[in-house]
């Protein structure tokens, strides 16, 4: 008869591995995702391509009536309080606290793997207190992590039932974490966390903020940071919709709005969003096809902005990773979308290449066109998008056949050439031109 070996994980191994690759920022965004998911369920937010066209249902009319998420961060306490509808007791019992059990048929949510909430709280601290109320019921769970982790055989979490919320507007969840992990305290005190976090929230949820909910960070309202896409009458972006194995993919490629005649290179590149949440921003790498299906990203392409929206009622079908900060390169949906992305981007990069020939002295018609680009919201972008980015025809005689060549040369070498040529009064530029022409004539005679 066979005997058995004990291969069960210890809880501390489990917790360590879950939280190891997660940054504190990602953990906090996981908690925001969790609150937004409550809202998606309770308000039946239509997270689909309609979200982009401002026709989404469930949108509260009044700004001051928007559901809120408040995040309080200090080096002794971390707290997220939302008024997003709460977690009902049945879901809490069967799904919310169960590791790796994503709810079946849950809709177009931001939660995917049944892991975000648990992982986030373990990342942040050791004393966890969660309280939630829906209009139907309420509960409270308190977890002392070291104590709970001490017993590998018992995975249960005791909870208390509480009174229901007095109305839908009051329904919500509070997560309070104390006895913060040393790493968390260190990050909170290093002075860079809050500014970065505000930026992350402003970008990641730009489609949700101010329309469906508000987020406050230590009492400060986070303003959405819209995607930098711009438009003018003559330069509407290109747009394309695909259906890849049931995942709806909306692609937009065009030019960013200009500020003081300049583009911000930091914001250029591809933005990838899954169910409305930004997963990758301003990507200029091979991840989004640069250097593989399109030429490598170079600084003259800094006006390019592309957005790939992926929507699915089955969040696991979307190409995001568990941290939601990266893309699953093996995903067939993404592999296919990436080629379409490069394809739709090409006419935009061609425009930018024409706009920046190497000789900047030329009066380039593309620049005048680019100066008219204005920031626009997504619904306007999608209304005006054309299948192919097609800038107005620029007469070709304006195109330059020349390119300016500049380089540093050793003074002594330039002087030696002048002496050899008996042209002591020639400037360095003239020497440069002469030597260039000499090469052309002797090595590449026509």
């Amino acid at each position, binding site marked *: 008869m066979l005997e058995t070996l004990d291969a069960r994980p210890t809880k501390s191994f489990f917790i360590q591995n879950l939280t190891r690759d997660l940054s504190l920022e990602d953990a906090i965004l996981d908690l925001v995702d969790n609150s937004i998911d409550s809202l998606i369920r309770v308000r039946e937010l239509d997270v689909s391509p309609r979200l982009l066209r401002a026709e989404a249902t469930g949108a509260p009319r009044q700004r001051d009536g928007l559901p809120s998420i408040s995040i309080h961060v200090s080096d002794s306490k971390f707290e997220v309080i939302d008024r997003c509808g709460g977690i009902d007791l049945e879901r809490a019992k069967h799904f919310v606290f169960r590791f790796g059990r994503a709810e079946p048929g849950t809709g177009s949510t931001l939660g995917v793997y049944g892991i975000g909430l648990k992982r986030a709280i373990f990342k942040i601290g050791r004393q966890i207190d969660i309280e939630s109320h829906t209009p139907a019921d309420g509960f409270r769970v308190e977890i002392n992590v070291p104590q709970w982790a001490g017993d590998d055989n018992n995975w249960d979490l005791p909870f208390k039932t509480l009174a229901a919320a007095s109305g839908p507007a009051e329904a919500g969840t509070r997560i309070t974490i104390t006895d913060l992990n040393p790493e968390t305290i260190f990050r909170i005190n290093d002075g860079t966390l809050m500014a970065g976090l505000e930026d992350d929230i402003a970008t990641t949820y730009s489609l949700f903020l101010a329309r469906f909910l508000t987020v406050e960070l230590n009492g400060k309202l986070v303003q959405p940071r819209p995607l930098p896409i711009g438009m003018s009458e003559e330069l509407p972006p290109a747009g394309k919709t695909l259906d890849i194995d049931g995942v709806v993919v909306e692609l937009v490629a065009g030019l960013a709005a200009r500020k003081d005649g300049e583009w911000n290179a930091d914001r250029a590149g591809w933005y990838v969003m899954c169910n409305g949440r930004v997963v990758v921003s301003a990507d200029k790498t091979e991840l989004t096809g640069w250097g593989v299906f399109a*030429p490598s990203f170079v600084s003259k392409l800094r006006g390019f902005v592309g957005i790939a929206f992926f929507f699915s009622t089955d969040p696991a079908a979307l190409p995001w990773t568990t941290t939601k900060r990266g893309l699953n390169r093996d995903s067939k949906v993404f592999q296919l979308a990436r080629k379409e992305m490069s*394809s739709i981007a*090409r006419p935009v990069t061609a425009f930018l290449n024409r706009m920046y020939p190497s000789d900047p002295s030329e009066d380039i018609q593309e620049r005048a066109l680019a100066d008219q680009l204005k920031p626009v919201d997504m619904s306007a972008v999608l209304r005006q998008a054309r299948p*192919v980015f097609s800038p107005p025809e620029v007469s070709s005689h304006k195109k330059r*056949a020349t390119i300016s060549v500049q380089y540093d040369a050793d003074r002594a070498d330039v002087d030696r050439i002048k002496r050899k040529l008996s042209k002591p009064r020639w400037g360095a530029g003239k020497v440069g031109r002469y030597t260039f022409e000499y090469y052309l004539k002797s090595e590449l005679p026509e």
Partner: protein
Amino acid sequence: MTSPTGSYLEVSYDLRPAKQVERRMIIDVLQRMTAAGFQIRDYQYTGLGSIYFVDFILFHRLLGLRRLLSVEHDVRIEKRIEFNRPFGLVETQLTSIGDVIPTLSTEQKHILWLDYDYVLDQGMLIDTTSAAYQLSVGSVLLITVDLKQPAGHESPAACMEYYKDEGGGYFEAGWSEEEFTPSALPMTLSRILMNALRNGTSGRSSARFLSLFRFLYQDGTHPMLTIGGLIGADGEKSQLDRCDFSDIDFVRRDETSPPYRIVVPRLTRKERIYLDQFMPCSAGWVPDDFELSTEDALHYRNIYRYNPWYAELLL
């Protein structure tokens, strides 16, 4: 990236016998495909016509193609391009071929010839992948590259470094200098291109690159490689199976078989007229009336049907 033009100044495009034989062989295959039901006449031909448009003239005259697009990158010869346009229905675009590929209609079947006259680089591989992805099922894709060792990278080791940089993800693990000797280079570059083609077609519902051509020939002092095939699914594959290629040996349906080498022996006009009377000859045959090696006799047998006649006209 090297300028895609320039060789039009070095080689007289209309006087390149091996290139012309290659074009004629490709057209022969396209004619056989027409007989097997491919509507080649309705295809659009997109190529890099330079100022000679030789391929455009053949495709229009011999295959009846009416949609013809020539792409030229060199803005300095805009007027020459326009001036030399052989037929009214040849359209020209002054831009890079890479910018044109994503705009090729998916409603239309294409013959796209990426007829580069310089050594393989990253930009070509991007064009190749995007063409393999973009072209509609049933389209024909041809890619030609210069096989000469890149300037400054003449040794196999340096040559390997060059292709490792340019080939990126298409450079295979385990390759050594042996793959980059002049004799091994054709198969190695063909592998790099096939990897790029596979990356381009991966994820397409069922379309893949069905190999048809792998030519090696000499253009002036430059050895050249052409790879060609059909973007097709099972339907196109069985349609290709129905094509009669039994009497020609230059078709390469199997992508691992070595390239077909086009060799055009140097012969006088009088010698050619003489040899033609005995064509096709059997292996080992040599003419009685002048010296010609058995190899050259065989080379001539392989190409005589496709070999152009050049003559000086005094007008």
